[in-house]
């Protein structure tokens, strides 16, 4: 269970750093809600919970969300927060309606499952090949994603820096910052769809935003933020699994709650430290 949790949290905490730095964390929130119609449509077309069609559906809706937000912002001059709110509530409502219309009788897919997720049941979905246990499906899907995220981050290190801090400069240099952004958003939506069964969409936001927020309290060095963020993400997973198991409550919200407590503690300690110094 710890491994499943970590395989959800690790890519989230790395992607989250970029989102937080670019002030796009609410777009991440929007995407994690907005992948719902993509999932439902893919589910309706192929009539099973195969992961590949769902991935494609989610990636498409994820990119669509960013495009829609951008369209509202640029073309219609809607202010950013309102654009985000309009876009994701529309898509989410569409998803809920689709479920109500077509998948109503199907217990495989309901909005509570999408919103909350269930780490405990997701580990029952195991990969057994040649009679040997290879870990759970969630790990098998998310582990490659973690590798891809790490790989993409290292490979595109300079590109991401330029994108996050100075995209005008990037554009001037002939860098396609929009494409970089779409790439990141695709990764975020793939992550959202892979992890929604385990942790639910709102917890995905928590996993995206909390580790980087903690990390930014501890350091201001660009590369260190990623490392700290990943460590804090994994630490709260381990703690969350233990605490949740101990008092017998669901794991995913426990992980996020603990992460939130860690964040609050760090902020308070920082406050006290700065008072003492000053």
């Amino acid at each position, binding site marked *: 269970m710890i491994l499943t949790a970590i395989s959800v949290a690790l890519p989230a905490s790395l992607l989250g750093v970029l989102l937080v730095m670019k002030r796009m964390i609410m777009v991440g929130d929007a995407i994690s809600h907005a992948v719902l119609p993509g999932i439902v449509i893919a589910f309706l077309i192929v009539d099973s919970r195969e992961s590949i069609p769902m991935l494609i559906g989610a990636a498409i809706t994820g990119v669509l969300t960013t495009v829609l937000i951008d369209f509202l912002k640029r073309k219609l001059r809607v202010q950013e927060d*309102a*654009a985000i709110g309009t876009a994701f*509530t529309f898509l989410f409502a569409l998803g809920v309606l689709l479920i109500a219309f077509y998948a109503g009788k199907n217990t495989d897919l309901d909005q509570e499952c999408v919103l909350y997720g269930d780490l405990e049941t997701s580990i029952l979905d195991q990969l057994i090949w040649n009679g040997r246990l290879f870990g759970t499906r969630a790990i098998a899907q998310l582990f490659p994603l973690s590798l891809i995220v790490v790989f993409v981050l290292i490979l595109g290190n300079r590109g991401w820096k330029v994108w996050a801090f100075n995209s005008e400069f990037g554009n001037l240099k002939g860098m396609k910052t929009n494409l970089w952004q779409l790439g990141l958003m695709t990764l975020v939506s793939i992550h959202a769809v892979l992890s929604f069964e385990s942790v639910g969409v709102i*917890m995905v936001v928590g996993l995206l935003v909390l580790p980087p927020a903690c990390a930014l309290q501890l350091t201001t060095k660009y590369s260190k933020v990623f490392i700290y963020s990943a460590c804090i993400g994994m630490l709260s997973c381990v703690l969350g699994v233990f605490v949740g198991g101990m008092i017998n*409550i669901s794991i995913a919200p426990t992980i996020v709650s603990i992460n939130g407590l860690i*964040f609050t503690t760090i902020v308070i300690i920082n406050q006290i430290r700065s008072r003492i110094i000053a």
Partner: protein
Amino acid sequence: MFSDPTLVRVFLGTFLIGLIAAVVGFFTFLQKKALIGDAVSHAILPGVILAYAFSGVRETWILLIGAFVSGWLATQQISWLERTTKLKSDTVIAVVMSTFFALGLCGLSWLQLNPDDGQAGLSDFLFGKIAAISMVDIYFLMGIAIFILLVVALRFRYFVSFAFNREFMIGKGFSEKRNSFLLNTMIILAVAMGIQALGVVLMSALLIVPVASARMLTNKINLLFVVAIGIGCFSAVFGAYISTLKENMPTGPWIIMVLTMITSFAALTRWIVSKNKQVKHG
């Protein structure tokens, strides 16, 4: 149609929710804090759960008190974090929102360890069920609507001036704390009542979208206020009406669909108008 008392309650309820959401949303939109509504609607969950755990009954006013306390704590924490850390405001909102919601979910799963019959009501509180609205809820909604309209009627200028020119108002000696306290109170009250009908996620739509689409149609502040309220009320009632046409149709999503249609029309109108203007000037 109006002979059925449930339907009358549903239409009255959605009308009132649409009204207060649009009024409150108008001010959060002007302050560029539209996503605060989103944060509050997630953040009231732990309060609702705690209120239920302590009292053991699902009475609207008890849950409302719980919702109010945790919503207020969340807005306080948001402004505290904005002051003390260097994090940007969207990050702070996401942090507070996800932490509170996670705490609430922990509480919910803790409650489910020893289930009893009152809990079905709690999940309605999250996903919204307008059909379950009672006459008491309607009276509550009326009371809150009157309160909010009164506050707005007395302080319209003051809120608007704060939204547009904060420094000037502070310089004039008006208290910013009082302003944001009033505004936060209104947001929390509106959201706490509204999510019973619409659910957590879709409540923020009713706060944001009416005023955002009204903004495409007009530049005048008074007109914007009126148009936003009109759009909010109309789409809430019309969406509720559509959802009663068929069995088991969720209300919230239909309201959002109507809202989105109106937004698209507004966008189209704006586009045509701006095209015409270009032709005139060119």
